């Protein structure tokens, strides 16, 4: 029976689907130079879908719908809103991409992966989880390799595809073991059937490892991070931004659901594994970010380390931990999209992506310089930007559950982070363009960039100051896990 509740639970996905079909229908009729308008349509449509979902698709008490495939709760809903916001921003950033922005397929693929991510955030069944992960991944494989005659982009697409399929196959093997031992694919039933009495810790350990290969790949946590720098560097910049934010956040959504809901009985085992992964990821990510000279590779390694910080909240395995992860994801999505958006806006005009090419940016476009300041200070975890509050929350969760050593590792790493983030700002603010007058080399922003970046920068500041409501929603979501 198709009740209104079922309809409401997948309302955002239905709207995204409609939007994608609309673009597919209209795009062939547009002239070449009008096709970039598909970006306006995507972004506007997504924002409208968010409004409609907020009005008609809000969850009440958490329920399982569609035969237990999907859970309709605040956690899924809040994350869906975040993903759709990220998708809208990505669409705006994509519009003026020289080679991808005028092709309607790019937006349709974006929407398709967005639908997959939305379902990832809501799935409560292993089958549905796997399907949604693949739905989210396959369009991004194509998007990463979207620029056909560019070697790096092709390499990025191919690399992401190879790593991605390998990782998800291994994860599927883990899922099959879970099914084999429990006889069910529903996350709630697994929690009941798969207890410490029924399987040995060794097997549980193996299952967690296998599953983490796939999910670790999605969130690009060490040692499953090798694809990230190459893919970020090669993929069209907005796609890289999308990959590093929405895609990573969707991975965390699955991690939260899977481990908190299905494996609470083995928390001793998986918190141990995740704590080690978090510590290694923060350290390796930050240390490898230090020698980078390409801004996109720097952001790639920084995003690896941020996966580690967020993981502290998962390791804490309590309400504050889960809420802090969700809040961290919100702050991180806004911040990192802002960073990638600026990189995109700058390289569109200059065609340059080395950190040293950013010399004199604050004179060439003061607004862009300030926004870069906000983005990088937020990444470094400085107030009044979202990154600070998010970090304090995950650290608080870590200290609360006695993972003080992990928090100390995190703190040492944020000090390393401050160093290389400030190093970038040094180029932006301190250095001048060699032998040239900056006044003659302005970096103008087109309308979509201005809109997207200003909204994102406001988001970063709001998340860092008036964080009350956002934490409230994160917490409401976290409550659904227990």
């Amino acid at each position, binding site marked *: 029976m198709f009740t209104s509740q079922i309809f409401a639970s997948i309302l955002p996905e239905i709207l995204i689907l409609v939007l994608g079909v609309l673009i597919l229908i209209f795009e062939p009729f547009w002239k070449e130079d009008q096709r970039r308008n598909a970006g306006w349509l995507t972004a506007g449509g997504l924002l409208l879908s968010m409004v409609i979902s907020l009005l008609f698709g809000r969850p009440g008490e958490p329920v399982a719908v569609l035969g237990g495939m999907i859970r309709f709760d605040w956690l899924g809903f809040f994350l869906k809103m975040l993903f759709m916001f990220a998708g809208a921003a990505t669409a705006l950033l994509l519009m003026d991409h020289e080679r991808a922005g005028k092709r309607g397929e790019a937006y349709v693929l974006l929407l398709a992966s967005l639908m997959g991510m939305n379902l990832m955030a809501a799935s409560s069944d292993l089958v549905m989880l796997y399907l949604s992960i693949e739905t989210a991944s396959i369009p991004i494989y194509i998007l990463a390799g979207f620029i056909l005659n560019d070697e790096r982009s092709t390499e990025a697409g191919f690399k992401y595809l190879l790593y991605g399929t390998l990782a998800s196959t291994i994860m599927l093997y883990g899922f099959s073991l879970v099914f084999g031992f429990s006889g069910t694919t529903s996350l709630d039933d697994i929690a009941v059937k798969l207890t410490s009495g029924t399987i040995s810790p060794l097997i549980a350990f193996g299952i967690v490892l296998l599953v983490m290969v796939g999910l670790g790949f999605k969130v690009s946590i060490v040692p499953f991070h090798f694809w990230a720098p190459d893919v970020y560097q090669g993929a069209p910049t907005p796609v890289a931004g999308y990959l590093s934010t929405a895609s990573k956040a969707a991975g965390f959504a699955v991690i939260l659901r899977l481990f908190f809901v299905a494996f609470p009985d083995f928390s001793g085992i998986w918190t141990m594994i995740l704590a080690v992964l978090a510590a290694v990821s923060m350290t390796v990510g930050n240390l490898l970010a230090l020698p980078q000279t390409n801004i996109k590779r720097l952001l790639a390694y920084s995003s690896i380390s941020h996966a580690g910080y967020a993981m502290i909240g998962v390791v804490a395995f309590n309400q504050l931990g889960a809420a802090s992860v969700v809040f961290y994801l919100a702050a991180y999505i806004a911040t990192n999209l802002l960073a990638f958006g600026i990189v995109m806006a700058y390289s569109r005009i200059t065609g340059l992506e080395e950190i040293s090419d950013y010399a004199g940016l604050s004179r060439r476009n003061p607004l862009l310089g300030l926004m870069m300041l906000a983005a990088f200070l937020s990444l470094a975890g400085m107030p009044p930007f979202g990154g600070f509050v998010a970090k304090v929350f995950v*650290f608080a969760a870590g200290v609360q559950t006695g993972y003080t050593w992990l928090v100390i590792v995190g703190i040492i790493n944020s000090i390393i982070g401050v160093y290389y983030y400030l190093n970038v700002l040094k180029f932006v603010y301190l250095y001048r363009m060699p032998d040239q007058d900056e006044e003659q080399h302005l970096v103008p922003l087109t309308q979509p960039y201005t809109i997207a970046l200003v909204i994102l920068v406001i988001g970063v500041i709001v998340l860092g100051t008036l964080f009350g409501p956002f934490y409230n929603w994160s917490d409401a979501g976290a409550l659904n896990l227990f």
Partner: protein
Amino acid sequence: MNFPILSVITFLPFAAGMLILMMPANRKNETRAVALAAAVIDLLLSAWVYLQYLLSDMRGYQFIEKYEWLNIFPIHIELHFGVDGMSAPLVLLTGIVMFTGVLISWGDDDKHVMAGIQDRPREFFAFLFLLAGGVFGVFVSLDLFMLFFFYEIAVFPMYLLIAIWGWVKTREYAAMKLTLYLFIGSVVALVGALAMYWTQYQNTGVLSFDMLKMEGAGFSPEFQALWFLPVFLGFAVLGGIWPFHNWSPDGHVAAPTAVSMFHAGVLMKLGAFAALRVGVMLLPEGAKQWSWLIMLFAGVAVVYGAYIAFVQTDLKYMIGFSSVSHMGLVMLGISTLNTTGLTGAGVQMFSHGVMTALFFAVTGMIYDRAHTRMIPELGGMAKIMPFATIGFIIGGLVSMGMPGFSGFVAEFPIFMGVWEEQWLVAVICSISIIITAAYIMINIRKVFFSPMPENLEGHVGDITVLDKIAVATLCLFMVIIGVFPSVMVPMVSTGVENIMRLLGGA
């Protein structure tokens, strides 16, 4: 409801900074005018707070403002503002330094002088105000989370201010060193703060970052002994405590004048104040156990800082190390944990803030005009800039602890307090007074009264009217407190009573 004066004081600089950023880049004078207007309003408001507190019965925390910021289990953050006898003078100090800092940075459009901030003043004032807002926030916050929030806001603009507008030769190195030192200190203290939050919850079931509640959290002596040093030293790094003072003179030297004034005048107090408020007041047992170590560190800073200042040939390095020495006195006062010493420390924070801001202001004026800060290359400034000379001499007298000036009112109780605890330390540290007197007098003679070197003849002009106003303002406060200690000492001692109550004495 009362007028939320502390919120206005704290958030006005942020608002002014945003406004300044939105102004067109080429309207430099309008930018400066907006900055000055905001600074004047903040100075008047902070003076109003100070006077109100002074004229009231001077008890406890006043001008309390409390707003729920986030109260969702298990996080409880409030925007809780209030001042006591310890923080009210520091709020006033920040207002003074902000006002004079803007005046000094106004600049002189004479191409020959190139004083003040000529390159991108819009961004400069915006970042400076971000810093100022953060500093106000720390002094008035009674909520530990908010204290950290503002503390970090006060730290990172320093990087930009020094790196962008600083002295070309060392600015990158100094700015990065400073930021990393301070950031390490603050995050170490942050872990301690989080540990305190959860331990309070375990002990009393109260979830709150409110420091007034944390005072009664019943931390065990073992807990306090463990966490006192990370928390106290984490903040004291910003107070320039030996052996973590290394960032400070480098930062002073590299920073532009107004930022040096802020840095030495206010930021270092931020460290000492936060160390006192979070370290000593929330972990009093830990403070008692470790006070010997703090006293040792502070004592070394006092004597060693003075000696290093004595051998400097760069005027800014000299003042930078004299700041280490004088902030060592503040730490020394705190480490006594008795009423006399703490009162001295409180007054010294204000006195040193004004004095060192004056020193840096005058040094900046000299450098902008003579293009050198090397003491052997300077001379005869008294003829050219008599007003600045008088200011520098008054600052020197304060620095030496001459009676009649604020330095005496501050240093005398500190030494008394130390004598009560450890007379030997007091004797050793008093050597610093002699060294200070020596380097101050030698340098005043050389820089201001020796014959002017030939290469400077005719190139150096007098300071502007705005500069004179700044110098006069700063001198005024030092003399007033020196002559009428009763305008500050009783107020600080009420703040100290509060601390002594927590320490279980008095």
